[in-house]
């Protein structure tokens, strides 16, 4: 399969784009062993130049031992040094330095050369142990430095593979002893990896999420069993929706942004959030980068569409949820229980958090008999020692339940609020919640 690909790739790159290509870049692009890539370059070079002489230029990499003239030069230099040494006062006091090392140090030369100078350079070698085409160019190049751009491409574009697995495909030397930490903070990864690179790490996340959500939703469902009609319905439906949705999502960040009502999987979240942070970065990063790699554009386009579709879906879901919340309001006591449950969860959270809530944005509020309760988004700063002993500070947004039983004078003012907030929540929530937040600052 790559046998056909490589011709297209080389033709496109050399003849259409007029850009040089090295064996390494070719092997990365068509996913073959580097040694095979070198032979492909040779094949292409031969074919093209047979069709149209001198249409493609090549550079060669020669490895071997150079002619002895250089060696003797080196030796002469050394003899000279030795003479100086004998004049200097050192040897008198030093045993064992009198006889210089007669054996010349064996030197292997690796030389990169254009095809124009190939024969001349070859003549300098006594023994050529290996020779191969290093790169092909559309025409003779004056500055070999341009080839390093190809290598830069290799370094930046083809990072998606696990570096420790690269050897299998490309034939780098395998070292089974090297260990690599998977970056946990995501700082390193987000900076360097492009979108496809981040995907493999993001993948397992939905799987993790499902059990988390399930375990979380179960107790709440069992608790509410005793209570009457509407509330259990709401919670059950809620849990249903949470169950069905997370697997579709790729990023946690989005999930929490758009889910105003659902209960977040709190205990698991601390583990998941770094990845969520990373995939958020990924989303930001992919856009400016998408211009550069042309091959991936189609993929990116598809990904973007998918994302939008998901967003819409979520928006719909949001509206449903809000309606449900409204339906639940008449039952104070039951609903209180629910929020009590949520509060029970809160201490779990506070164990982790080192610093208290940073900003509070109450989003959904339901008023029942002058009492307001709901969930608000809280940005918490958390210091966690990770598995490697580094202290990691994370900022994460957490949904927190709250109720305001203790504030009797408020209701008058607050009465008109819920409607507007519910409406505003529908539209405002996904975009930006700043205005609502400022509205609730006092509460």
């Amino acid at each position, binding site marked *: 399969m790559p046998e056909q690909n490589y011709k297209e790739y080389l033709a496109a790159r050399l003849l259409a784009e007029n850009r040089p290509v090295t064996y390494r870049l070719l092997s990365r692009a068509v996913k073959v062993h580097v040694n095979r890539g070198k032979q492909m370059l040779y094949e292409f070079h031969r074919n093209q130049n047979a069709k149209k002489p001198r249409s493609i230029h090549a550079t060669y990499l020669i490895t071997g031992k150079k002619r002895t003239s250089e060696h003797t030069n080196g030796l002469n230099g050394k003899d000279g040094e030795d003479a100086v040494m004998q004049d200097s006062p050192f040897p008198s006091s030093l045993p064992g330095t009198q006889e210089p090392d007669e054996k010349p140090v064996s030197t*292997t030369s690796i030389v990169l050369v254009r095809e124009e100078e190939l024969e001349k350079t070859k003549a300098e070698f006594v023994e050529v142990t290996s020779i191969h085409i290093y790169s092909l160019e559309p025409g003779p190049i004056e500055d070999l430095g341009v080839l390093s751009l190809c290598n830069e491409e290799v370094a930046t574009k083809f990072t998606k593979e696990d570096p420790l697995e690269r050897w299998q495909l490309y034939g780098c030397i395998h070292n089974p002893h090297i260990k690599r930490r998977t970056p946990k903070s995501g700082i390193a990864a987000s900076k360097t990896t492009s979108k496809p690179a981040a995907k493999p790490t993001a993948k397992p996340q939905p799987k993790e999420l499902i059990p988390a959500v399930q375990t979380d939703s179960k107790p709440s469902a069992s608790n509410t069993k005793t209570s009457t009609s509407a509330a259990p319905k709401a919670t059950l439906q809620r849990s249903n929706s949470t169950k069905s949705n997370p697997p579709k999502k790729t990023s946690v960040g989005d999930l929490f942004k758009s889910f105003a009502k659902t209960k977040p999987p709190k205990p698991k979240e601390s583990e998941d959030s770094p990845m969520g942070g990373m995939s958020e970065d990924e989303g930001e990063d992919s856009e400016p980068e998408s211009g550069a790699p042309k091959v991936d554009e189609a993929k990116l386009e598809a990904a973007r569409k998918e994302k939008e579709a998901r967003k819409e879906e979520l928006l719909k879901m949001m509206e449903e949820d809000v309606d449900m919340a409204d339906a639940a309001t008449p039952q104070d006591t039951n609903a209180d229980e629910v929020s009590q449950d949520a509060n029970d969860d809160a201490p779990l959270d506070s164990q982790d958090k080192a610093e208290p809530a940073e900003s509070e944005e109450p989003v959904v509020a339901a008023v029942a008999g002058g009492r307001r309760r709901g969930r608000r988004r809280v940005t918490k700063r958390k210091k966690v020692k990770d598995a490697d002993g580094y202290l990691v500070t994370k900022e994460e947004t957490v949904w927190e339940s709250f109720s305001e039983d203790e504030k009797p004078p408020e209701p008058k003012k607050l009465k008109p609020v819920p409607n507007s907030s519910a409406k505003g929540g529908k539209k405002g929530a996904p975009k930006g919640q700043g205005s609502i937040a400022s509205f609730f600052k006092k509460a």
Partner: protein
Amino acid sequence: MASTEGNLLRGEPFQDPTTSSPRNASAYKPLHTFELPKGAEKHYQQQFADMYFLRLAQLKNAVKQKAAEAWDDFELGGEKARYVERVLDVRQGELCWVVGTVYMEMGLKPNVLDDISKEHWIAAPPPRETYVNPSGQDDMMLEDESGRLRVTGETVSAQYVTGCILAALGTEQADGSFQVVATTYADLPQQPERWKGEEIKKAPKVDSKGGKAKKVAIISGLGISGTEDDDLTLDLLLEYLTGEASGPPDQAEAIQLSRLVIAGNSLSHASPILSREDFAAKKSQRKNYGYDASSYNSTPAEKLDTFLSQILPTIPVTLLPGDSDPANVALPQQPLHPALFPQSRPFVNPPSQSKDTLEGFDPVTNPWEGYIEGWRVLGTGGQTVEDLLRYVEDVEPLEAMEMMLRWRCIAPTAPDTLSCYPFQDDDPFLLKVCPHVYFSGNMDKFGKRVIEGPGGQKVLLVAVPKFKETGQIVLVDMESLEVELVEIGVVAPGS
């Protein structure tokens, strides 16, 4: 003319690449001799005099013993040589020998007082290649706790540098100077057998399967500057180390490498303290006070990081800082900060697990010592040798390295002309155990030599050339301690 196996100038049908064997594990045990205390425990209020005191106290006995062996029966004109405890106790006309620290008073040696009065100069003097006064009026002194003794005599000229401990035999002249007949020094300390070093005896020995040869590659002076012209040789180096360049026979050679040691100056202009030239250039440009973030160029550091992150999956790396690297300037230079290597950092062992990264990326101090394949290896970024060579004339770097080992002090000129941390209780620059391999980075050209000590010690000295200028990589065979070179080059178009 190329061997058929290595000739990849072949077209279809493509040959299936042979699967190569994996790299061998590197038996590696870094020592933390040169690590400074961290944070608030690092003080700079101490006096440097303590270092000289320590040096003399620790080496006096060894030197005395050596001198006693040599001169006990020495007679000159019927007079027996006598040992004198303190240099000021030397009596005129009496044949005797003393032990003391050398101090060189040299015409061109930088002087702290000169630096202070520098503002009065019209133009600063050019940086010194040598401290030797061309008119030959340099004085040599021998000092201990009691005082100083001016030393004269043919044998001492141009042999010693400030800071080395020495025993001198001679008589005091009428003018008060000490006429020296002979000198001696401590010579090589004890050397452990391979695999028998104190620190690795207990460590589990990595069995080398089938006794396959392992080599260690040493390079220095990558000199990554961020300009484009040095990129290609660096790429070729990368491809050589990962075993991608060349044909199967040469790739098989590259598999034998089990570790890469980078001996300083990986970046070319990254020292936090500007050199005299750089400073002058910058000063003339404009006057800006404080740190100027806009002038910082992160490209070289990023390039080094990318380079390392690409070779690290296949070969473990030990990285020493050099004088142009962004580490502290005073010796011992501490490991380069991991923040410089966002991509290579995952290959460093997390601090919670262990201090040593045995396989992977190990940023270490300069100088550094440790065990590789059972051999004790000592290496520096080259500043110590460079500075020592300014004191003397017609001395090769290898000779300077040899002298340092024999004086048992690998940085004798610190703290006189080489900045260093003011050690109080222990001077790590004193050689307590003789290494098997001693390398020094950033030398002008490659060199190697095997020296022998009085107790049968054998040390391989390697002067590692600057990669940027020579394209040379030094390979040391860890079974036979044979040295070979790999040279990477690009033929300039049109040559």
